[in-house]
Structure formats: structure tokens, C-alpha cells
């Protein structure tokens, strides 16, 4: 009973808003604001004929690859910088400067250099996502207990093993947090780069439909991207909770 009222409390407003939108737009004469029913109808059609699925798979694989590159580079560099104080101090202002560049401004340059294809999208995502991962990894490696470090030194743990089995697991919660921050940034950059110039993907679907004045398609593409972004972010935080169960249980925080 209590859970039911709780669910109702959480749902009534979103449902009401969607219903309002549905009916308010039902007889819309504004060319640019099509009825919600029509937007959803178009979305359903393009899902069944595979257009949207294909666009999604291309966009999402670019996003995943970009994020993967960013994670590998960010974690590796982050661990090195975290363990070498001098290097960290020297590079600090540069890292902060590069991180401050609005990532969307990089998109035209990256596309200009690497062309229309997937490579430019992957690089754009990677370049935008690497910074939060890098900075969080540095934080994480700095957070590894002094005692643990000392033990590793006393037992003469080899360098690589030390990184792999001590610093990396110790920094893991921060690394995951970094990826969680990077994910929405990556989605935004993916969308921007596809909207800027592309011939496949969700951004292309939106761009193409708006330039050919198929307005409901534009709306459905935009909403779909939004929903996908939302699902990815929520999904990641669920996975994150699973992976880091030990961390939350140990009460380290």
C-alpha cells in the first residue's frame, strides 16, 4: 500500500504533463509543433522499418568507442600523474586550461581534420570525455591509503603489479565516478558532432528530416536522443552501484 502511494506520488506529475502535451498539441495548426500522437506514430514507424535502429547502432557504437578510448587514456595518464607528484604539478595548469575549452567548439575542427565519417565522431567524444576521467583518476590514486602504499613497498611489489593490483582498484570508485561524469558530456558531443555534419546516426536523422521539412521526424529524433541519453545515464548509475557494492558496503565513504 505504501509503495503504491509512493509510486503514484512520483508518477502523477510526469503523466499529467505528457497527457497535457498530448491533448494540447492534438489539434495543433502550428506547422512546427506537430501533435504528440503524430510524433510518436512516426517514431514507431521508423523503428519498425529499421531506420532508427540503424541510426542508433551507429551513434551508440561511436559513443562507446570514444568513451572506451577516453577511459583507457584517462586512466593510464591519471595513474601516472597521480603517482608522480612533480609531473602532476607541472602539467596542472595546462590540464585545467584544456579542460576549460568548451568541448563543442572543438567539433568543427575535429570534423575538419578527420572528415565526415565515424573516426571524427569517436575522436570528438574521446577528447571531450578524457578530462573528467583523467582528473578523477588522479584524485582516486591520491586517495590510496598511505599504509597500503607502504605495505607494497615493504614487500617489494613490482611496479606494474603495484599499478594493476593496488592503485587501480583503490582508485576504481573515482574512475567510475569520472566515467559517470564523462558519459553525459560524451552524449552531448556525439549529438553535436552528428548535427554538425554526418551521413549516418541519430544526429543525421534529425538534421536530414529538418532540412527536408519533415517536422514530426525531427521531433521524434530529438526526443529519442533525449530518452536514450537518459536511459544510458540511469543505466550506468545502476551498473555503477553493482560494481562498487564492496565500496559502499565497506563504508569507505
Amino acid at each position: 500500500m505504501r509503495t503504491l502511494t509512493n509510486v503514484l506520488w512520483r508518477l502523477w506529475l510526469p503523466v499529467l504533463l505528457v497527457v497535457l502535451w498530448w491533448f494540447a498539441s492534438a489539434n495543433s495548426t502550428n506547422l512546427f509543433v506537430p501533435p504528440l500522437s503524430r510524433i510518436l506514430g512516426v517514431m514507431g514507424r521508423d523503428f519498425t522499418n529499421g531506420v532508427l535502429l540503424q541510426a542508433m547502432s551507429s551513434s551508440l557504437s561511436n559513443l562507446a568507442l570514444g568513451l572506451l578510448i577516453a577511459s583507457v587514456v584517462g586512466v593510464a595518464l591519471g595513474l601516472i600523474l597521480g603517482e608522480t607528484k612533480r609531473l602532476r604539478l607541472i602539467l596542472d595548469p595546462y590540464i585545467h586550461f584544456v579542460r576549460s575549452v568548451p568541448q563543442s567548439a572543438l567539433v568543427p575542427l575535429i570534423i575538419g581534420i578527420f572528415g565526415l565519417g565515424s573516426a571524427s565522431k569517436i575522436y570528438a567524444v574521446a577528447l571531450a570525455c578524457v578530462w573528467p576521467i583523467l582528473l578523477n583518476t588522479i584524485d582516486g590514486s591520491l586517495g590510496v591509503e598511505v599504509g597500503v602504499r607502504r605495505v607494497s613497498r615493504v614487500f617489494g611489489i613490482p611496479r606494474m603489479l603495484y599499478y594493476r593490483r593496488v592503485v587501480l582498484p583503490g582508485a576504481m570508485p573515482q574512475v567510475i565516478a569520472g566515467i559517470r561524469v564523462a558519459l553525459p558530456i560524451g552524449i552531448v558531443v556525439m549529438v553535436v558532432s552528428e548535427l554538425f555534419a554526418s551521413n549516418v546516426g541519430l544526429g543525421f536523422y534529425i538534421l536530414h528530416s529538418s532540412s527536408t521539412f519533415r517536422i514530426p521526424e525531427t521531433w521524434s529524433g530529438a526526443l529519442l536522443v533525449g530518452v536514450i541519453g537518459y536511459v544510458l545515464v540511469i543505466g550506468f548509475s545502476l551498473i555503477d552501484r553493482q560494481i562498487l557494492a564492496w565500496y559502499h558496503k565497506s563504508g569507505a565513504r
Partner: protein
Amino acid sequence: MATTTTTPMAFSGRPSVNWTLTFQRVITLVVILLLWQFALMSGLLPKITPGVPDIVTSIFTVVTMGNFWVGFGYTLFAALAGWLLSCAIGVVLGLLIGTVRPLDRSAALIVEFGRAFPTIALMPVMMLVLGATTNMKITMVVLAAVWPVLVQSILGSRRLDPGIVSTATVFQIPKGLWFRKVLLPSALPFIATGVRISASIAILAAVGVEVLTQVPGLGRLITLAQEAERWDNALAYLFFAGIFGWLVASLLGRAEGRLLRWNRQSDD
């Protein structure tokens, strides 16, 4: 987007200059620039990449050009207006949602959805509805930048100490005064984080809209320079975009440190 990291170095204005470190930093910069130049000459970088001297020259010529300042002005205006609106809306709504229980439960899903929604996806739709105007740009900025402030304000208002609540109740502090002088300052450390994140998102969104549309601004200049194959100019604009973002971040960090002096002290 609730967490970002700041390394302790960034915002602590330390009075004494460490000359060795500064020297090492300068050397590192020189090495990076030399590497760039060598990579270019050896053909590792694409042919169209401009050399270091070209970029440096561009940085100096660009500052003397009127259209740079006009473009910069447009970006600054839209980002600033959108950011201020976001802060006002986010703080008021956030404090309300955070303290009024029924509102909190009803709005939870919308807030969760809104903060995870990649707002930039709505750009083409906004273009259709509002056209390629400054208003559209500001709307986009608000839609993107309001969430961190909102979420942080909600978190901040939940943090209000029960002891403080009792005190305010016993001394019969009226609602309006309570809101302004108790709830708001208490939530301020959290709000400040939201405001800071929101500022960089505002810049990101403003530039993003400019890159994608014909709306004038720094992002538009970069696109135009790229289309005209003036890579040196494009990189110069990018450099200033970075300086802008960095300036805003460090100014806000410093303001936060000053404004929230009480918070750091009372935490220990």
C-alpha cells in the same frame, strides 16, 4: 553531473611564487610546442594543421579584429543571460522542492529525467519553433544549465541542520526571512557547486548552438574559420574560448572561496 573534481591547486591563490615550478612549466610548454612543430614538419600531423608561429601570430591579430570582439560579446551575453536565469530559476525551484515534501516526491522523476536529458538534442526543434535567434540560444542555455543548480539546491536544502531548524522555529522566524537568511545560506555551499558547473555548461551550450546554427558568436566564428580553411584563426578562437572558460571557472572558484569562508571553517 553532480560531481566534478577540482584539484586543490586550481583555485587556491597562493601568495608566494614557486620559481622552480614556474620554470619547469614554461619549459614543458616550450617542449610541447616544439613537438607540435616537429610533428608537423615530419608529416605526422595532417598538412592543413597550422604551425606554431602561425597560431601565435593569429592569436595576436585576432584580438585586434572587431568581429572577434563582437562574436565574443554575443557568446558572453547569451551564456551570461542564460546562466543568470538558470541560477535564479534553479535556486528558487530547488529550495522549494527540497523543503516541500509533496513537491519533492512529485517532481523527483522530472528532475531526474531533466538532468540526464542531453538538451542539445532539442536544438533542431528549437530552431524550428524559435528560429536562429539570440532568444533561442538563451533558451537552449537555460535548458542545459538549469539542472545542476536545481539539483544542487535540492540537495543543499535537504542538508539543513535540525538544530538550526529548531532554533529558527523557537525564535519564530517568519517564512520569508527564514527562506532568505536560513535556508539559502545553509544550502549555499551546495548551490555554489551547482552554479559553478552550470557556468561551464552555459558556455558549452552557447558555443554549441553557435557551432550548429547561423547564430553569431565565438562558435560561429570557429565554424566559419574552419570552412574558410583558416585553421590558424580557428585555433586562435579556440584558444580564447579556452581562456574564457578557464577565467570563468577560476573566478567563480575564488568567489566561492570568499563567500563561503564560514563553511570551510565550520566543517572541522
